[in-house]
């Protein structure tokens, strides 16, 4: 029989057969591999009712310019029906540098909001009810310092820590693997992560102190299998580090959260979410024997794939994003960000971000896909793919085990090299037109369609630098220096650093000053260059 191609493969290169039948599910058991929604191994979802109970949280990642600019965008999004906040920080903030650092020149406020001090954080959340809105903060290297600022702000507003809900990304392993924003070597970073986990179990019980992220691994060019395997293995690495520091698995595991990409291959992506939940539950059970079932449940956020968007014919991106969003929802995500059509050109405009939010609302309210849990459960194809992804990820787990764990693997450049090879394969496929990208290698139009983009004014950097110098003059420098000294002493030992970070923030030490003080103790890191 004639077919278009000799071999059909998923976006990740897995073989896809003409048709799937009962024969493909011979080893598969509905009791063992599927289960009920809300029950082990959670293939069908972590809640018994899923979106019949409550739809996913619509959480658009936002941040640009000054704290005031972003505060205005937050209020705009909340006013249009968004149900949670998600902060994007600019590059200097993500790298633990103040806005007036030499290396911050030209970058302040560009790809996120500039936050150098507690006062900036207070302006960012001005008028936003921290006890009623949950906030996700996408920051990793200096995550513990930003968290200390958020907590201090809440304390000053009289909001008890146990009323605070939200997520700190705080996932450093995927930084070494993919996104490349670190401050220190892996070991001190792992210690800071364990410190935030420990602090949250005691004081901020509703907070998710880490969001173990595959998003950036995928954006760097990985396959779905690599995203799944490296992310879950990172998660297991954090659990081991916390146990080694003396935490009880059930004290922190229910608050772990995950963050996945959702790319173009519709069924592969749905299967990825299902496989991720099953694999996490099985590995947690097998390795750490928790008693609380919530320790086995993989809750996650998803974001549509930025790297799938095209600068050519940018309005087509609305369609790509909608399909990806639908896959994440059929995969059972707990929250979702949909990218705006203009994000291959600049940060999104208000019009573009509203359309992206509306795409989610249309799926939630008009498509009726939310009426039943895991509607694709039992599909020959989706179940086969789910099993295949789980098996492929397990094979990568074994390779990581033989390399001596994730930190050793990173130091040897293993995940970086695997991702680079996958990214090269994908690029070759696109250039040979083995994969068609509409508007890029087929259906090309000569002129790009101009759409309006967001501009960041040069005054953002100047104003922020002025504010910082005024803060440095106003504060009690003697007290501040004392707090930083105490922080350094604690950092040299093995106490939990959160109380010292809170003291430093309260004394108006800036983000850059705190991170520089820690670098003196912890040192810096240079990656093995894989090319």
């Amino acid at each position, binding site marked *: 029989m004639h077919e278009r191609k000799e071999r059909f493969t998923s976006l990740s290169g897995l073989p896809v057969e003409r048709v799937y039948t009962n024969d493909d599910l011979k080893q598969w058991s509905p009791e063992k591999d599927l289960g009920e929604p809300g029950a082990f191994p959670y293939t069908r979802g972590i809640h018994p009712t899923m979106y019949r109970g409550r739809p996913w949280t619509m959480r658009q990642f936002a941040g640009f310019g000054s704290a005031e600019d972003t505060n205005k965008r937050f209020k705009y999004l909340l006013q249009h029906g968004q149900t949670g906040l998600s902060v994007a920080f600019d590059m200097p903030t993500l790298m633990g540098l103040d806005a007036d650092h030499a290396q911050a020149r030209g970058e302040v406020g560009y790809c996120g909001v500039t936050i150098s001090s507690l006062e900036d954080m207070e302006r960012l959340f001005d008028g936003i009810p921290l006890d009623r809105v949950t906030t996700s903060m996408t920051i990793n290297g200096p995550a513990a310092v930003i968290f200390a600022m958020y907590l201090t702000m809440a304390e000053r507003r009289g909001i008890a820590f146990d009323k605070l809900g939200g997520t700190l990304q705080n996932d450093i392993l995927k930084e070494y693997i993919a996104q490349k924003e670190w401050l220190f070597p892996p070991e001190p970073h792992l210690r800071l992560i364990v410190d935030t986990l420990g602090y949250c179990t005691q004081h901020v019980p509703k907070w998710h102190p880490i969001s173990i992220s595959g998003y950036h691994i995928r954006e760097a060019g990985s396959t779905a299998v690599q995203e799944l395997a490296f992310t879950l293995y990172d998660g297991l690495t954090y659990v081991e580090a916390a146990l080694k520091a003396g935490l009880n698995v059930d004290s922190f595991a229910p608050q772990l959260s995950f963050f996945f990409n959702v790319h173009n291959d519709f069924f592969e992506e749905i299967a990825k979410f299902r496989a991720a939940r099953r694999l996490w539950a099985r590995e947690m059970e097998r390795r750490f024997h928790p008693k609380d079932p919530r320790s086995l449940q993989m809750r996650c956020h998803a974001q549509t794939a930025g790297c799938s968007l095209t600068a050519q014919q940018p309005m087509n991106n609305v369609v790509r994003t909608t399909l990806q969003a639908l896959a994440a929802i059929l995969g059972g995500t707990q929250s979702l960000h949909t990218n705006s059509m203009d994000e291959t050109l600049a940060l999104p405009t208000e019009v573009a971000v509203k359309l992206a939010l509306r795409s989610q609302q249309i799926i939630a309210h008009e498509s009726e896909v939310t009426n039943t849990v895991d509607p694709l459960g039992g599909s020959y194809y989706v179940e086969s793919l789910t099993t295949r992804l789980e098996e492929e990820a397990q094979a990568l787990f074994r390779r990581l085990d033989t390399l001596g764990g994730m930190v050793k693997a990173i130091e040897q450049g293993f995940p970086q090299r695997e991702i680079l090879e996958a990214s*090269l394969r994908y690029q070759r496929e696109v250039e040979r037109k083995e994969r068609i990208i509409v508007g890029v290698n087929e259906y090309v139009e000569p002129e790009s369609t101009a759409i309006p983009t967001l501009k960041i004014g040069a005054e953002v950097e100047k104003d922020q630098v002025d504010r910082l110098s005024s803060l440095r003059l106003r504060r009690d420098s003697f007290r501040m220096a004392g707090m930083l000294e105490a922080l350094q002493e604690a950092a040299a030992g093995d106490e939990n650093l959160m109380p010292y970070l809170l003291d430093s923030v309260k004394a108006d030490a800036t983000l850059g000053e705190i991170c520089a003080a820690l670098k003196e103790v912890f040192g810096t890191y240079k990656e093995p260059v894989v090319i």
Partner: protein
Amino acid sequence: MVGTAPLRVLLGKVGLDGHDRGIKLVARALRDAGMEVVYTGLHQTPEQVVNTAIQEDVNAIGLSLLSGAHNYLLPRVIELLKQKGAEDIIVFGGGIIPDADVSGLKAAGVRHIFGPGTPMAGIVDFLKGLRP
């Protein structure tokens, strides 16, 4: 190209963003096309880039930025090259750069900006075209 030395190209990430997927693809493509590639790695300052370019005696500098800082960092590299009398080194860029910024960057002396979705062959041809 018989009888001429291969083109030497410095590729680097200038500024703070760590998105290195694109630049690594370009590095492979240029090497496959027979060029010599010096990759600086991440988080380079304009000063570091220019010093390396002069030391390594490259014909061209390709810089990737996805952070929005191109309007400051790319002209800064050009300015430093001029200060050091190395303005014969061609500078080109790529990444998330809005169309509206391209003419300003070209006026500052950036030879070309390659946007998202550029085929690798386009960059190879551009560099080969630098030779008479």
